[in-house]
């Protein structure tokens, strides 16, 4: 079974085609790295795959469900981290996760478990605004996996992470389907089992089998 299946996926901003047409098939527990330069359409593609944005055209199935009509059912099984952390600076790390746990119908124990997972238990009672950017990124990752999603869609999850933080990613990916955008080809190779190079919103092939000149 495929966890992500896209046919003729297109996303436009006005008359500008940002992504597509794009076909994509990712099996359950497959890990796809989306690579490409600035403006290639990585973030736009990931926002569509995370159901944050509706595609302008094409068909998208996530976890066997129609992404257009069954968004709510998908969202409970999907974890997303975008460019922004989506955290509340005035609340503590634990309060942030407890809040999102409530929205997922979970409790305090799940929030505490997620904090342990990203090794932030000692910072549980510190406000987000007092955490370093790297710690905030870890907390945002904890928010994305809090509800134990089957599918993870992550936009540059390694941003601001130190060596230990990057080491956490492999553990978070374990047993999950992952689509991850990154500029770090070495990290992509380490964590993912397939890759797609985006150029001007189009699939330019697998960068691991291509000889890329002038790309990231």
């Amino acid at each position: 079974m495929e966890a992500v299946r896209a046919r003729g996926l297109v996303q436009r901003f006005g008359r500008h085609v940002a992504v597509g047409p794009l076909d994509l098939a990712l099996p359950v527990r497959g890990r796809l790295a989306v690579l490409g330069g600035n403006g290639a359409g990585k973030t736009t593609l990931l926002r569509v795959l995370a159901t944050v944005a509706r595609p302008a055209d094409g068909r998208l199935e996530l976890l066997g469900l129609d992404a257009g009509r069954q968004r709510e059912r998908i969202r409970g099984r999907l974890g997303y981290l975008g460019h922004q952390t989506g955290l509340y600076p005035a609340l503590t790390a634990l309060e942030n996760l407890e809040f999102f746990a409530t929205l997922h119908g979970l409790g305090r124990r799940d929030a505490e478990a997620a904090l342990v997972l990203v090794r932030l238990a000692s910072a549980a009672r510190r406000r987000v605004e007092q955490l370093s950017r790297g710690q905030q990124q870890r907390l945002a990752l904890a928010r994305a996996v809090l509800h134990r999603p089957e599918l993870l869609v992550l936009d540059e999850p390694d941003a601001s992470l130190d060596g230990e933080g990057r080491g956490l990613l492999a553990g978070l990916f374990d047993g999950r389907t992952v689509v991850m955008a990154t500029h770090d080809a070495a990290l992509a190779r380490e964590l993912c089992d397939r890759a797609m190079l985006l150029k001007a919103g189009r699939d330019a092939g697998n960068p691991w089998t291509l000889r890329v000149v002038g790309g990231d």
Partner: protein
Amino acid sequence: MRFLPVVLAVARKDVRAELRGRELLPALAQFVVLALVIANFAFDLDLVQGPRLSPGILWLVLVFAGLVAFGRAFAGEKETGSLEAMLLTPAGPTAIFAGKALAAAILLAACEAVLLPAMAVFLGSPISPLVVVTVLLATIGMAALGCLFAALAAQTRARELLLPVLALPLWVPFVVVGSRAVQVAMAGHSLMPLPLAGQPLLILVDFDILFLVVASLAARFVLDD
């Protein structure tokens, strides 16, 4: 997903963040007091004119304080990406919207707790329980509409301009009916002699129900599409 726990969690989170960050309430309280001081000098109010003009001044200050309070409701969430994070949970946009509106109403009510005593001090306005009830009833409907338009405006670049343009025309019914009730209350009269259909408090309750239903139905499309 249960509706009420989500509403309460969102409202609690907003109020807690405001109490910690102290971004909005001190500014609103300052705005309210300054607006009354300006009104005092601009209208050259004395003890006779003050109470007579009080209802109008009250609604003017309340409407502009509301624009500030509701304008921040979604702008901050949009800037930090937390609105997206909330919408990607199974909580449902309507419950999230209701929680945001509840928090905004609580913050505006806190602002009114400064406004009404300040009016008594600066303008000599007689503040009775009827005035308080009228203002609180208007706050509910204004919060529902204000937050709906704030959510809409937050998705545009010109949100500071768009919110007043959208919200003010639809707040007019609250101002018209609320002013009437406050005028009667401040004059020391009772609302009882008025016919049932013309009871300002009942009309305000009707407006609240109408706008709560409309805003809840529209919230899904405004927040998530």
